């Protein structure tokens, strides 16, 4: 296994149900993303994208296979870490289709909450949050509440929240779906920039035709299996 791999998945399988009513959602997925790299994960509805994302996010348990984060094996037929909650908090960042910010926390605390949950001091957590907000060009909105932000600003805040604990992996589930072309491209640009800056391996699940050409590498998932394709990498 390469030393610098961000995330590596080998022959990952996931079955739902039991007995005669087994549905095999993932039939042996192989995937590898390097630190600082953003890859696209595309496929039709029901192809297994969400199941793969949930397995990667440690919210459902795969049936078999292997998963490693930064060369540390976390799943090998069974979870090798005891505290999945801590794993999600410290090692995986999430960006959702809708930002799902906590409506009663201001922007800076929406982000700072994540390191605080990990035991980082309030001051340090807020400093980290502010640094990310500045980097994502929404530092001036730090004291605003989510309802006072535009859709693009909210998504940038959710990117900041995903990165604040400097996780090796960021999973983005249709992050540009509610945005227009310009804002969608802006979000992808930022994800790329942040991936490089924080050396995170970013997997973007998308249907969005506007952003598919921006990926250098794409994993196409069909019938529970992934096929790696070269992308156009047109990010300008």
């Amino acid at each position, binding site marked *: 296994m390469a030393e610098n791999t961000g995330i590596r998945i080998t022959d990952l399988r996931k079955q739902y149900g039991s007995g005669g009513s087994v549905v095999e959602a993932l039939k042996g997925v192989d995937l590898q993303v390097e630190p600082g790299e953003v890859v696209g994960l595309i496929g039709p509805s029901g192809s297994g994208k969400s199941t793969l994302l*949930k397995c990667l996010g440690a*919210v459902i348990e795969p049936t078999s296979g292997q998963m490693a984060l930064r060369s540390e094996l976390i799943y090998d037929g069974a979870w090798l870490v005891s505290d999945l909650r*801590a794993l*999600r908090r*410290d090692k995986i960042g999430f960006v959702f289709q809708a930002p*799902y910010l*906590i409506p009663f926390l201001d922007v800076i605390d929406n982000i700072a909450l*994540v390191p605080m949950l990990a035991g980082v001091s309030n001051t340090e957590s807020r400093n980290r949050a502010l640094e990310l907000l500045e980097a994502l060009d929404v530092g001036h909105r730090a004291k605003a*509440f989510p309802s006072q932000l535009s859709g693009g600003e909210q998504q940038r805040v959710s990117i900041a929240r995903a990165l604040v604990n400097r996780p090796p992996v960021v999973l983005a589930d249709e992050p540009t779906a509610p945005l227009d072309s310009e804002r969608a491209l802006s979000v992808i640009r930022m994800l790329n920039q942040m991936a490089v800056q924080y050396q995170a391996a970013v997997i973007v699940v998308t249907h969005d035709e506007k952003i598919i050409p921006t990926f250098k590498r794409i994993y196409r998932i069909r019938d529970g299996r992934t096929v790696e394709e070269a992308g156009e990498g047109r990010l300008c």
Partner: protein
Amino acid sequence: MINLAWRDIRHAWSKFLFTGAGLGLLIGATMTMAGVYRGMVDDAKVLLDNSGSDLWVVQQGTLGPYAEPSSLYDDTWRSIRTVPGVERAANATYLTMQVRKGNTDVRAMVVGTSTVSYGDPGQPGYLVAGRQITRGHYEAVADMATRFSLGDSIQIRRKQYTVVGLTRRMVSSSGDPMVFIPLKDAQEAQFLKDNDAILQQRRRTALNPAFNPPGQPKLLDAVISSQSTNPYVNAVLVQLKPGHNHGKVADEIKRWKHLQVYTRAEMEQILIGKLIATSARQIGMFMVILMVVSAAIVAFIIYTLTMGKIREIAVLKLIGTRNKTIVAMILQQALGLGLIGFIAGKLVATLWAPIFPKYVLLEPGDALRGLLAVIVICSLSSIIAIRAALKVDPAEAIGG
């Protein structure tokens, strides 16, 4: 660490405040019900305190004079006065009726009291204005709750009385204000018939050969005279000399005079345990219902608030929030709502208590018990919402 519950309340403070205020009205109603009960108990105690007596002597086999009718000859007090340990003994009558003033009338307990010497049991203990009754007839001392004033002319049955003194917190066990009048007037008022009835009674007596036998004209006069006077009182109130055992003196009177005697503790038991027992149970039922309704409302509000945050809870779980943090958030919100409700409830209960026609006694101990009940109710009510929140799957934050 950020306090999520407090932040949520602060962010949507108006929603919490108005919901809490609405809940507060319900809590206020519950506290008022408790206050009404306490007021009834206090009225009963005040009635006993104000009578200034240690023992109540009443007709044998009755719970008089407040709970049941009791009738004693009005010279009974003289023989009771001779019992060792008795300092003072005085007659008393009690009659709850409408007392008129001009075109209006007031529900009051008319107390016939001894005017033989100042300080006899049954007399109003203190006055806030005016003086005690000094004449044998047609003077009255009224409680301020009657809204009578000094010099007012009030009508009891057919007689007019002048208000010469005012008292405060002199009420019957049902909260009716007292009007004190001389004993003889009260005895007359208790059995006073109208003129037509007196005429009819005299005619009937005259026609009865047993009362009007030939050759004995004075017998008819004697019978008619006995019919037009009332030699009865409802109770003899007894004050004891210091150092005498109430129970022993009561036993002496029971044994030698063949009368029923109640001590202060027994009379309190009659008033609280029997006279207002049904009302107390009624109030208790209302309080239970109000508490159940409050619990249901808190549970519904907290459940609705939590269900409105399901996505956020899923996200919180996904990003690594501990279950206990989420439980604390919901529990603290329920308690916050309860606290707002309690403060609002205490405030409105205090504000509207004086408007109630009967005495509402809001005791600090009841407020403390109410606060504990609110804490328990809110904690229990949040269980449904907590269970729902704990069932939220972090995977719900991820689409698909």
